[in-house]
């Protein structure tokens, strides 16, 4: 029977980052996944670090992540394509302008240097912006990276320290005895460890249910696309038109994310189905509205992912007392950017029981008294669309 110090369930970015830091600290770590590395939420990520300026609970952790991103290539030893050139929200209509002002107000809750800028200043950052551009909300802080490279960089760096990744192996349950975590039951038999860290997206809820925990995440399918490469045009992370994110990759492709949400249920044994839909045509239309020059490119590739959203759209970092040794993390739709910081927090919590990372207010305690039917009430139950 296999035996480890720490088992991490889920080989997405959060799981890999946690595993990397635990292994680096000297523990023997196993990452286990029902599918391949970074194949659900992490491969669909936009690649942005959200600074979470509107939420003082999360902003400190985002600030910590930002510092880590700036030296992540050196830390891991593999390129991530991190581009620290700021972020820009753009309004193209009266309605969006009004929303932008509200967002600005909320973003001043933390000090990330957000400022409102005029259309001319927006176009200095992104020369290809539509003539409809009205104004922008900008911070020189933060940036974006290549999600696929980042996941693999963590996976390889973890393996460089001797870590083990077990793909295509479903985990059925967490084994607990006498109030202590003992390991996991898997398709490859029982695997033992005193510490079990759940980073399994929406499937965290299934694994925690036997412990009487209502884990407040719902899973959603979202779509993404890239165009053929264009000459280098801008480096800031763009957001506009109801949350459409478009970044230009180092290679020159425009990589876009956003659009309608379909809420789904996940199954234990198989990698979830993630089809694209004709809605990618609407995404394309919006890209052209934002950047008319995109008309001259070709749609090259679309794909989709499934990701977990927490009830209040904030990160969850939690260490259980019962059973002792069980921990859980959820990224709430912006886990990509937070992953470097969440990994350190989770690894420290797992190995030492405490962390210096700013995680106050992010535990499950805030959900005490959550209605068991919260998903249906919020229309986040499987099959709901655009809610």
């Amino acid at each position, binding site marked *: 029977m296999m035996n480890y110090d720490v088992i991490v369930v889920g080989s997405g970015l959060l799981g890999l980052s946690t595993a990397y830091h635990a292994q680096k600290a000297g523990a023997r770590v196993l990452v286990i996944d029902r599918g391949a590395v970074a194949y659900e939420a992490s491969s669909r990520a936009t690649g942005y670090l959200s600074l979470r300026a509107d939420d003082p609970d999360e902003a400190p952790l985002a600030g910590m992540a930002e510092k880590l991103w700036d030296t992540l290539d050196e830390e891991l030893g593999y390129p991530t*394509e991190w581009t620290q050139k700021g972020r820009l929200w753009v309004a193209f209509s009266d309605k969006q302008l009004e929303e932008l002002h509200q967002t600005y107000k909320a973003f001043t809750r933390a000090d990330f240097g957000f400022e409102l800028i005029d259309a001319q200043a927006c176009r200095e950052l992104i020369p290809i912006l539509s003539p409809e551009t009205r104004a922008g909300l900008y911070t020189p802080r933060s940036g974006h990276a290549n999600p696929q490279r980042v996941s693999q960089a963590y996976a390889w760096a973890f393996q460089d320290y001797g870590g083990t990744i077990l793909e295509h192996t479903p985990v059925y349950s967490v084994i607990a005895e006498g109030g202590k975590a003992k390991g996991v039951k898997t398709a490859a038999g029982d695997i033992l460890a005193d510490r079990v860290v759940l980073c399994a997206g929406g499937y965290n809820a299934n694994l925690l249910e036997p412990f009487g925990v209502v884990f407040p995440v719902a899973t959603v399918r979202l779509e993404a696309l890239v165009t053929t490469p264009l000459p280098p045009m801008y480096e800031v992370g763009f957001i506009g038109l109801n*949350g459409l994110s478009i970044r230009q990759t180092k290679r020159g492709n425009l990589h876009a994310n956003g659009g*309608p949400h379909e809420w789904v249920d996940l199954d234990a044994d198989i990698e979830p189905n993630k089809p*694209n839909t*004709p809605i990618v045509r609407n995404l394309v239309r919006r*890209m052209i509205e934002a950047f008319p020059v995109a008309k001259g490119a070709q*749609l090259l590739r679309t794909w989709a992912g499934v990701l977990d959203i927490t009830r209040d759209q904030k990160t969850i970092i939690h260490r259980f007392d019962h059973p002792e040794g069980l921990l859980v993390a959820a990224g709430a739709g912006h886990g990509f950017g937070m992953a470097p910081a969440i990994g350190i927090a989770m690894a420290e919590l797992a190995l030492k029981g405490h962390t210096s990372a700013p995680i106050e207010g992010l535990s499950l305690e805030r959900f005490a008294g959550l209605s068991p039917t919260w998903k249906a009430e919020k229309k986040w139950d499987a099959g709901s669309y655009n809610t």
Partner: protein
Amino acid sequence: MAARGADYEVTLIDEHPQELKNMSFDAPYFYGSGLPASLSDETAVFDNVLSSNELLLECVENEVDVKIGVVAWGAFHNAPNSQHIGTPKVGIVSREGNELLEYDALILATGSRDFVPSFKGWELPGVLGGKAGAKLLTSYQCFNGTRCLVLGTAPLAVEFARAACDRGIDIAGFVEPTSKFQAGDQELEWALNAGIPILYESVILEAGGTDKVSSATVISTDGSGKQAEVECDTICVSIAVLPNVELPAAMGCEMQFAEEHPAWVPKVDSNLQTSVQDVYWLSAFNAQDDQIPRILSAVGDAASASEAPTGTTQHGARAADYINVWVAKLLEMGGSDVVLCQCETVTRSEFLELQPPRYLKAGMRHPHVAVTGGDAGPKISQDLTKRMTRVGMGHCQGKRCRDEAAVLLSQHYGIPLKDIKPGSYRFPVRPIDMSLIAAEDDDYHTREKWPHWMHEEVVPESVAGTAKR
């Protein structure tokens, strides 16, 4: 015609005649970069392609809704985690715009494409695939070249050579890595009678020329290192064909590996229905010789189906073995410093070592290998190798390099092809102009009620944390 004869309403979609720009993506065939300028005369091209296809004209006369020069870029149906498609539909795009066509039954008869392995100079104008060559000669009736070297001696090679000879093009020779003419004795006799040299136990080392092919260096594989310079202005790579599976694979049809081709093909029942309901796979790669009646009877009355017979067609020697010999010999003779992926300029060695692309100017702390699988699942995932090296990630959507890349991985790591998961096929199955695929039906709900991307939604005051305020 058979479906129309059974009184169905039928729409026939074909991507030919293709726009010149789309042909430059080397799909479905490997046209190469030397496409004749005459292809830009769209009227003449339409006339040529239509008039050379009698069956298509017959379809038009019999009220089949024939849509030519149209790409089926995607297909959509309700499936797990996607429950809002409604009636199943196919996304098509023409030179004017795009539309979604609803269907009761979808027959995928997407044919085959060229397998063209890399060699030095294969990006030069004048290098093309056998399917592309034959199509340009017989259908588009536009061909640049007067003297052509043919790589391979399989039936495709002879088919191309015969078509070329008929049109007064010289065949400079056949290049064959083994000592056997693959297409059989009868075809060998034709080649000998036509006075075409056959270079046995040889592969191409390099296509020569500055702005286009002007010669080819052929090298003996017997260990002597003997080289011959062949004068030619075109090199037609006619080694093997592989099925066009982008559409069924991307729309979620369950795929299985057919060892002999060697290719992943849709898994079908005895009526040729795929794992997606009402979607059928009609293909020369299937073993059945009565495919059309089987499909029509299933469409008509949902005839009971059984598990499919396991066999698929065999064209003489196994294509898999022939492909293996070519790739191994080209690597042995040409070395690893040969561009494997034209779109992203990645060499064989950069690919096999999983090096990051050159434009990142970045290295790797430690070498890593492509083999990731343990006891369960595939041993190598081409999604991983493409994400790291960009081989298969370029504007040809991997059509030029993905198959050779899989064979190289298989030979390099000693992993059977069936244990290598091919890179995921994605919509659109051809690169499509953004202006053509943009939705026109962007209704109020989609426009105004499209939710903000979750993590950009501003956390309301009521739930915003208070810890650090």
